[in-house]
């Protein structure tokens, strides 16, 4: 057998998948900007993503902020006399620019992306998506658009809350464990804070929201082969969203902060 054959087949498979994803993405975006819209479905998705993800995102950013403060202290206090401002700075920049959006994105990928892939995948294999079409309802408009718009808009909200909670986590550790002066810590944080730090994080959040919901919908929509296929779709949705989040995170950081 020709040893190049499997490589060629894999390459063709990759091209086919890329083409299918591009088609899916452009069709979804096209329907995002054209009426009719299903506002009730959008509201339900926004609540699901924005409200019910709050505890998960809050917990992760809280402990991330706490760990960051502690870690920075053990690293910097030996070098710097101004440990307070160093810790405040690292926590604030670390949370708003990187950890807040990335952690929220990954958590939502696990929580929302997986659920979307499972739901749409089940609808696909039980022919519910076909049924939508026969009932003169476009499945992109009915299923995909509300989810993507909810992801785009609600992830920044989640991350904004996560930023506050994460910075608060750093404050708790600094004040109650490391014994810093609360007033000085808050002042140091406030002096460092720049709009661009928060804004870049929110831009990331929106991009991650798009990625998570797109991957969830895409893998669910194109799943096949019964329960096993739905399981595979769920896994693929989470894994691909997580990888894309980390890649996109680097790219956006590069765009905003490399001078």
């Amino acid at each position, binding site marked *: 057998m020709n040893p190049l054959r499997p490589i060629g087949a894999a390459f063709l498979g990759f091209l086919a998948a890329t083409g299918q994803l591009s088609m899916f993405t452009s069709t979804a975006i096209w329907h995002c900007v054209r009426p009719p819209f299903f506002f009730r479905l959008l509201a339900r998705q926004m609540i699901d993503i924005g409200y019910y993800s709050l505890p998960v995102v809050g917990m992760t950013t809280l402990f991330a902020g706490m760990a960051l403060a502690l870690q920075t202290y053990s690293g910097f206090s030996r070098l710097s006399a101004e440990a307070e401002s160093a810790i405040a700075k690292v926590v604030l920049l670390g949370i708003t620019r990187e950890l807040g959006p990335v952690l929220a994105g990954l958590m939502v990928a696990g929580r929302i992306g997986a659920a979307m892939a499972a739901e749409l995948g089940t*609808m696909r294999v*039980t*022919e*519910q998506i*076909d*049924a939508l*079409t*026969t*009932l*003169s*309802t*476009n499945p992109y408009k*009915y299923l995909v658009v509300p989810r993507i718009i909810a992801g785009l808009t609600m992830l920044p909200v989640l991350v904004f809350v996560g930023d506050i909670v994460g910075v608060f986590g750093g404050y708790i550790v600094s004040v109650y464990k490391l014994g810093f002066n609360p007033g000085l810590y808050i002042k140091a944080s406030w002096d460092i804070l720049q709009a661009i730090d928060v804004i870049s994080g929110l831009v990331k959040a929106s991009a991650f929201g798009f990625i998570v919901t797109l991957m969830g919908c895409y893998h669910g929509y194109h799943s096949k082969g019964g329960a096993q296929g739905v399981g595979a779709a769920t896994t693929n949705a989470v894994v691909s969203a997580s990888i894309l989040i980390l890649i996109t995170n680097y790219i956006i950081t590069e765009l905003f902060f490399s001078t």
Partner: protein
Amino acid sequence: MTDSKTTSRTAPMIRLDNLHKTFGSKTVLNGMNLDIPQGSSLVIIGGSGSGKSVTLKCILGLLAPDEGDIFINGESTLAVFAATRERTNRNIGMLFQGAALFDSLTVWENISFGLMQGEGMNRDDARDIALEKLVAVGMERKDADRWPSELSGGMQKRVGLARAIASNPAIMFFDEPTTGLDPVMGDVINDLIVNCVRELGATALTITHDMASARKISDRIAMLYQGKIIWTGETQDIDHCDNAHVDQFIHGKIDGPIKMNLRVA
């Protein structure tokens, strides 16, 4: 309206012209031709995996054939705008093999889904129609607010049927309506299908491998084998047709020209 009536005597309601469909290296439809006259009820029979569902999905526009053309009411349905396709689908009611009810919606919301989402009817009117259709398929009004997951398979099929007839379509498709049901419930569904189709005066296309159901529902029967229609005729003629494939299929014989690809593991 009068126009379509005069043309319908010459042109069939649905015409499949030389359909080809291949998945990867597997040829499913291989030059399929079929005419379904207006107001008739045709059943396509054929073994599992012979491409019956693929045929239906091509007609519905859920799959695109590789070659050939599909005409509904004399007009080609391929290569048309999405809006045109949607208008065509509004005239078609489909009962899916597994009923395909939306499990996030109640029974009555399922039945009136096409009316509310597709045609923009308000909820009160849509609910009235849903209740009417629910009774028409032999269920009770109090079932309207239940969830699909609470219903038995036979009841789900009935709700699926009610959803299919909700918009009084001119064309009805049934994908294996009796598969997975016990014989009694299967016969109930057969009767409902016959009644609904007659009341609407619809053109019906059913695919099945259940011969009892096929005999009951159909005026005409067509047999799909290896991607082609190999026999078509009046239902009463099927028992004395001289086609060996049909004869083997309707009597369920092991010996005959149809070879199952049974691989011994």
